[in-house]
């Protein structure tokens, strides 16, 4: 087992070393393999032999050697060998921060989301293929193939080591934030078996988002996303019972919420709203901050939550947003108003028979006193979900109504 301090250090250094190496050789695919090998070597050697005087330099030297070995053994590229071998051995890593550039490359539009996630965790997060495979509960061979295919795609699409500019940069940053958001959710909503590994993903997403925020402190969506993650993560301990059953927001023990994360999250959420542009992560963070503000569920400022969802509906229309607004509306104006808004979603193919729509409808029908309707919808929702924890929760609601 590699000690946590060494793991943290390696994850911190891996993208820096990769950035330096790609700058020198301009071949992301091979450099990424070389860095991964160097990180694995360090994870084995450092705990035994102690930290080298210059860990970053050590990694860069080892990775460079691996890269040169790789080029040497690659017959098709013999011609390049002389050029690479003749290069001066690496000294100190240049003081260039490539974290963002690497993130942009890993979230290349030629890649599927699943591949972007895997590549980001490996190339920027410094996780090993085995760790990523464990987190996503797939065999290492499957994850290795996915990562190698992703790197080939980036190369084939002409992904170059240089940040995109203009509108493309805006788009790419959006893709990066979405990937970080997905990684966070994958970890946060973990409900079965090897929970620990998956909880790591939420922490990892926060760490990477912090890194992006440190480099782009003035980008209010980055700030908003970080705030959203912290405010969500703050509720983690209260979100499930000891036996793994889900606890809805209204019934959570708020004393279990992490005040430190909330404080930081609220500050960030406020700071993000002061920015010039308003984006969906900022608004979602504001919703989370509103919930965090309430000492008890009964004291929630639902009018504000509803107003925020109205804003979100306008800037990022999406049936799930409307669904969330219906919950807030029901709290402000009663279940009938919420149900009326829900009925506008019935024709939406994206959500028809979706378990979230069914469970929200069940919840509002229950509030309205329609026991039979609530029961039927809880049962349909329980059948429609793919999450065991959610299914258990929905079945328990149904059982409670039957009693």
């Amino acid at each position, binding site marked *: 087992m590699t000690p946590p301090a060494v793991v943290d250090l390696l994850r911190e250094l891996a993208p820096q070393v990769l950035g330096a190496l790609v700058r020198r050789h301009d071949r992301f695919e091979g450099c990424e393999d070389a860095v991964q090998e160097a990180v694995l070597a360090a994870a084995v050697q450092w705990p035994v032999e102690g930290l080298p005087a210059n860990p970053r330099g050590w990694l860069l030297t080892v990775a460079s050697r691996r890269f040169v070995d790789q080029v040497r053994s690659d017959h098709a590229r013999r011609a390049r060998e002389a050029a690479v071998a003749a290069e001066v051995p690496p000294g100190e890593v240049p003081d260039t921060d490539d974290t963002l550039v690497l993130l942009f490359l890993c979230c290349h539009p030629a890649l*599927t*989301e*699943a*591949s972007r996630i*895997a590549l980001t965790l490996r190339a920027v997060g410094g996780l090993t293929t085995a760790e990523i*495979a464990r987190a*996503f*509960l*797939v*065999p*290492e061979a*499957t*994850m*290795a*193939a*996915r*990562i*190698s*295919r*992703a790197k080939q795609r980036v190369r084939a699409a002409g992904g170059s080591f240089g940040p995109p500019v203009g509108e493309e940069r805006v788009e790419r940053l959006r893709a990066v934030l979405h990937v970080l958001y997905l990684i966070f959710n994958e970890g946060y909503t973990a409900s*079965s*078996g090897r929970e620990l590994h998956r909880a790591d993903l939420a922490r990892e997403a926060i760490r990477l988002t912090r890194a992006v925020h440190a480099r782009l402190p003035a980008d209010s969506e980055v700030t908003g996303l970080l705030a959203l993650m912290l405010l969500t993560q703050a509720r983690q301990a209260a979100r499930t019972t000891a036996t793994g059953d889900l606890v809805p927001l209204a019934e959570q023990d708020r004393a279990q919420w992490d005040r430190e994360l909330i404080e930081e999250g609220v500050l960030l959420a406020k700071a993000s709203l002061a920015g010039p542009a308003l984006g969906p992560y900022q608004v979602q963070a504001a919703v989370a901050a509103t919930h965090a503000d309430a000492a008890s569920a009964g004291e929630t400022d639902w009018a504000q939550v509803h107003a925020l969802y109205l804003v979100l509906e306008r800037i990022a229309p999406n049936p799930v947003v409307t669904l969330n607004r219906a919950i807030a509306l029901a709290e402000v104006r009663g279940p009938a108003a919420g149900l009326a808004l829900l009925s506008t979603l019935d024709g939406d193919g994206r959500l028809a028979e979706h378990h979230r729509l069914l469970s929200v409808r069940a919840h509002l029908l229950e509030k309205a006193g329609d026991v039979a309707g609530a029961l039927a919808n809880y049962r349909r929702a329980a059948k429609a979900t*793919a*999450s*065991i924890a959610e*299914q258990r929760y929905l079945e328990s609601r149904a059982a409670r109504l039957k009693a």
Partner: protein
Amino acid sequence: MKFLISMHINPAVLDALTDEERAALGAGHGEFIEEVKRSGELIAMQALVDPSQAAVVSVRDGRPVVTDGPFLEAKEHLGGFYLVDCEDKARAVELATRIPDAAIEGLGVEVRQVMFADGQLEA
């Protein structure tokens, strides 16, 4: 997202295939396996022996009873499956359309999302 793509075979339909058709079926699976392995989507694939080789096990009054033959009194039986990890259901369905069984009348290919999993995936 993990999906099980199950293949429901009908031995009578398979028996009626010509040698060429049978060879094409095997080759089609071979190509498909290579493709999903390369893309990093295949977790596992298993094909089962003929349903006539199945044993049905039940326990009555604490005593095990074992009878030969398949459980379902149907023409179609589970013939094997692919376990894949892919982007979403649409992608799983797209993968299923490339399984050669899907193009043969009388054979069924079904896609269902995995809800809970445990056990060694490293094997």
